[in-house]
Structure formats: structure tokens, C-alpha cells
């Protein structure tokens, strides 16, 4: 894919006290592409996206959005710069309704500060319909929705509020087969718009194969491999996902137990 990256990250370092969670990570994010971020448990994927989302501050390194250096002091800053994050835990409130969650922190109100509930109900319904689910009752509590529906709600919310980069942290884990495919379909639909870049974190090689255009592999806080879909071999992806170890070696290890 050609063109300028929407967002560029250079040499991000994140230390938690004596522990270095990220040791100099760089990557480029292009609009209209799905960028798979892969790596073992504890590799630092969530830490990386939390920095991109303004939850953590980087210890070192720089983020560029459309070529300009930016610093995110809060999630609000990141949202304003077009970074929409769907966290592993989705940042949804279970006891609150679909609409109230959809607009949490960015409610629509009239001049007297009173919420325009009808308008908000309608928007929440329409936006979710656009990417795949027809939700009849926007007053339903999120706690009663299925995992896939919640995922869709969180994605629809991020897009509606102007996300140019959509970050999905393991959106398919903890879902049943059918719902996993539903989420992948949603990702494809968003990708087709062409203007939104998606960072897709997953442990599932097949899922990444199905939707990703570009890959970055993390291990122990470092990038151990990166490339486009065409430049990476199947076996290569597997090897990198396991943190650089040869699958054959792992299998041998398993045998010997």
C-alpha cells in the first residue's frame, strides 16, 4: 500500500519502575489497512496500545500523527487526535444502557444541559446497524448483551466519534466461533471504508491471516519482525508469533515432558 502513514511511532520505551515493558518499539499505521500486532502473553502489546490511547505516558520515544509529533496527556487527547481504542475489557459499563454507554463522556445535550435521549437512542441504533447488528432496544443494559455485541458496540462507538485509528485489543478472544467471525466481518467492513486504520491485536494466527495487511511481532518488549502480508511466509508468521522460537523446537520440548 502506498501513501503516508496516518500514525508513526518511533522508539517507544515504557518502564514500570525497574521493569521495562517496552524497549524501543517503532511502527507505522496506514489508513485503510489492518495492522496485526502479534506476540506472546506479556510481550507488551497492551502496554503499547495504552500509550497510543493516552492511558500511559511513554518513558521515551515519540508518536507522530499525520507527520506531526504529538503528546497525549489523557485519553481525551488521544481521542481528539483520532485514536479510538477498544480495550480488552471494552471500557463498557455493564449496568448502563446501550445508549448511555455509546455516548459515555460525550453525551449530546441541549442548551440547558438536558440529554437528547431520543436522538442518542437513534444514533446508537443506526451506527451499530451500519457495522452489523440490529439492536432493537437501546435501553437494554450492556450486562445482558453477548460478547460479540459488546465488541460491536465498542467499535461502533469509536468510529462514530471520529476514530481514524481503531485499536482492537484481542477482540476475538473469549468469543464463540460464530461471534469471532462476526467481529472479523466487522473489521473487514470498517477496513473497506478506506479511511480508517485498524490495529488488530490477537493470538490467533488464522484470524490475523484472514484480515491483516501488515504485521508487527513483539517479544519481550521489542519488535522481532514486521512486514506486509505478501512479504511474510506462513511458517515465518508462526515462528514469530511464538516469540521467535522454532515451532519444531517447541514441539520437541512438549514431547520430552
Amino acid at each position, binding site marked *: 500500500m502506498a501513501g503516508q502513514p496516518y500514525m508513526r511511532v518511533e522508539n517507544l520505551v515504557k518502564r514500570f519502575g525497574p521493569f521495562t515493558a517496552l524497549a524501543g518499539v517503532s511502527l507505522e499505521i496506514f489508513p485503510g489497512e489492518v495492522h496485526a500486532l502479534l506476540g506472546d502473553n506479556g510481550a507488551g502489546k497492551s502496554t503499547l496500545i495504552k500509550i497510543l490511547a493516552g492511558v500511559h505516558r511513554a518513558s521515551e520515544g515519540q508518536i507522530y500523527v499525520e507527520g506531526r509529533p504529538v503528546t497525549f496527556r489523557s485519553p481525551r487527547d488521544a*481521542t481528539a487526535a483520532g485514536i479510538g481504542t477498544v480495550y480488552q475489557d*471494552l471500557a463498557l459499563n455493564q*449496568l*448502563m444502557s446501550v445508549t448511555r454507554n455509546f*455516548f459515555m463522556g460525550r453525551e449530546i445535550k441541549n442548551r440547558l*444541559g438536558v440529554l437528547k*435521549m431520543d436522538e442518542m437512542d437513534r444514533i446508537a441504533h443506526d451506527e451499530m446497524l451500519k457495522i452489523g447488528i440490529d439492536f432493537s432496544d437501546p435501553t437494554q443494559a450492556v450486562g445482558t448483551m453477548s460478547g460479540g455485541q459488546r465488541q460491536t458496540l465498542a467499535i461502533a462507538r469509536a468510529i462514530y466519534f471520529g476514530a481514524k485509528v481503531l485499536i482492537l485489543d484481542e477482540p476475538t478472544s473469549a468469543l464463540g466461533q460464530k461471534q469471532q467471525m462476526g467481529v472479523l466481518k466487522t473489521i473487514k467492513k470498517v477496513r473497506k471504508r478506506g479511511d480508517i486504520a485498524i490495529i488488530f491485536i490477537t493470538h490467533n494466527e488464522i484470524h490475523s491471516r484472514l484480515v491483516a495487511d501488515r504485521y508487527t511481532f513483539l517479544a519481550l518488549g521489542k519488535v522481532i519482525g514486521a512486514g506486509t502480508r505478501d512479504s511474510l511466509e506462513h511458517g515465518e508468521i508462526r515462528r514469530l508469533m511464538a516469540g521467535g522460537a522454532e515451532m519444531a523446537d517447541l514441539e520437541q520440548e512438549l514431547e520430552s515432558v
Partner: protein
Amino acid sequence: MDVIERSESDRLRQENWIQRTVRRPEIGAFMVMAVIIVALYFASDGRAFNALGVKNNVAIIAQFGIIATGAALLMIAGEFDLSIGSMIGFAGMSMAMMLKWGLPFGLGEATPFAAFAVTLAMTLTLGWIIGNIVVRSGLSSFIVTLGFLFFLRGTTEVSFRLINKSTQISGLPDYKETSWFADLMGGEVFGWFYDAWFWLGGNLNRKGEQWVTGFDARFLWWILIAGVAWLILSRTQLGNWIFATGDDKEAARANGVPVNKVKIGLFMFTAFCATIFAACQVFDTNTSDAAKGNLKELEAIAIAVVGGTLMTGGFGSVLGVIFGAVTVGLVANAVFFIPWIDGSWFRVFVGTVLLAAVFANERIRKRITGGI
């Protein structure tokens, strides 16, 4: 091929308004209230709801309602305030002492409004301090406000003894006659209600004259506070933020909700409610006492829970709190209308209803969160 196209919307059963009403979270509190009203009516031979009975009942219901509204909003945001009762004592002492001994720093005599304004400034500051300690330290508000429960009660008693020599002030002039403000806090309101009652042939004393002339002013304050709280909670952005803060703080923060400001604001709101409570009391009776407001924080929390507020935050309704306040207020007063009853049954009742409410609320929470 015979594929049935089913969409998500087909799976939701359409409910009529009765079914929807029955599923409302306030329904339990409403039923208990209805039972109490009927039982009290018969047990007191109707005396609980004659002209004076209604006035006295509303007076205590409004008292409970004012502080329970503050406690409930704070609980919905996920925090407790155990300092409400001591704050009432502190505010009452502060106002009465200024009225008797003048404004601090030799600023001269205190008008009722000045005494109230200076006191409110102090209590709001205290609420702000409590809120800041809670959000900055990350400690449980239970323990922080427990500290303030002791601190404020002690400060009240010490100040009384230092300045006033006694922990009581009585015999203040009746400011209601000279000050519009004192009348607004401690006078009578909604006189038209009792005028109409008289005009319709009721509300008579033994001589056949009009008996009761109006409700205590705190009724108006309760209506105002509950009305504003209801509007905020169910219809405004701030309301959405309060729910979001109490449900999952981190989720709310990730979406840009200023959770710390919400919490600090609500600690100031409970302090405000306690101050209104105290002002109504001081200007109604023209007295003050270091022991005022004792245990009121626990009653406020109990009423909030009876009204359907979740202990864990994120859920609750002002309407439920109104039902809770009516229920607890009526039972607290029942001893005056049913002479043969032992007043301590009040606590037995509150304890029982409280436990029942906690179980009911937990069921509602499980229903909403899918049983986790």
C-alpha cells in the same frame, strides 16, 4: 434452501406498560411503602394522616429525604459518606453560634443569611477536602469519612465548650419573624394545601377553627433537592457521568469522564444536603445541640439502599429514594400515632427492610449483569 432470516430484534419480547412497570427497580420500595401507609392508617385509627399527622410525618420524611438524596447520588458514584451526621451537628453548631456570638473575626452581628452562608462555605470546603482525600489517596471512602465522622463531632463539641461553655444553645430569638431567609428555612410552606383542606370542611381543631396552617419549610427543600437530583441523574450529562463513575471507574475514565471531579462534587453535595438539614432545624426550633444529626449518616445510607441504590455503585434512582424516605419516615414516627407500640420497633423494622432490600437489589444487579 430454507434459511430463516432472524434478526436480533426478533428475540426481544415486546412488553406492555404493566410488565415494564413491574420490572422497574423501584417497584420493591414502592410496595413496601404502600403496605406501610395502609398498615399505619389502620393501626393509628387514621390519626397518622389527619391534618397534624400529615404535617408531622412529612416533616420527618423530608428530613430523611434531604440527606438520603445526597447519600444515594454519592453511592451511585461508588462512594460512601459517613460524615453526614457529624456534618449536620457541625453546621447547626456553626449557625447557632454565629447567631448568638456574632460572626468570626469580629465581623459583627450575624444575620441568619450570613450565618448560613459562612457555614455553607465551611461545609462545602470540608466536602471538597474529603473528596480530594478520597480520590487522591485511593483509600476507601468508608474509612476516610469515618475519620471525619469523629473529627467533626469532636470539633463541634470542643467549639461549643470553648466559645459557648455549654454544648447547647437554646432561646435564640425567633428569626422567622424578622428575616425572610430564616422563614424560608424554618417557616411554613404550602399553606394553600391546608387552607383548601379547611375550606373543604376538614383540618378543624376542637374549637372548630382552622387547625394546621402549613407544612414545615423543609418539605419544599426536599422537593427541590429531590427534583434537581432526579433531573440531573436521569436527564443530564452529569447524571450519565455519575452512573459511569460508580459502575466501572476505569471504563468511565477511558471514555473521558472526569471521575475525580464527579466524586469530589458529590462529596460537596452531601455536605450541602447536611447543611440544609441543619439550617431547617436551627431556624425551625431556634436551638442547637452538639448531638444533632447523630446516626443520620447510617439512616441516609439505609434509605438509599431501601430505595434500590446498589452498595457497589452504578445503579439507583431518586424515585426509589423518595419511596424509601417515606417508608422509613412513617415508621420512625409511628410511635406517636400508635401509643401501644414500643418505639424501638423502628430499628427492628429498618434493619429487616434493609436486609430484604439488599437481597432484592442484588437480584436486580444480577439480572442486569447476567448473573456475575
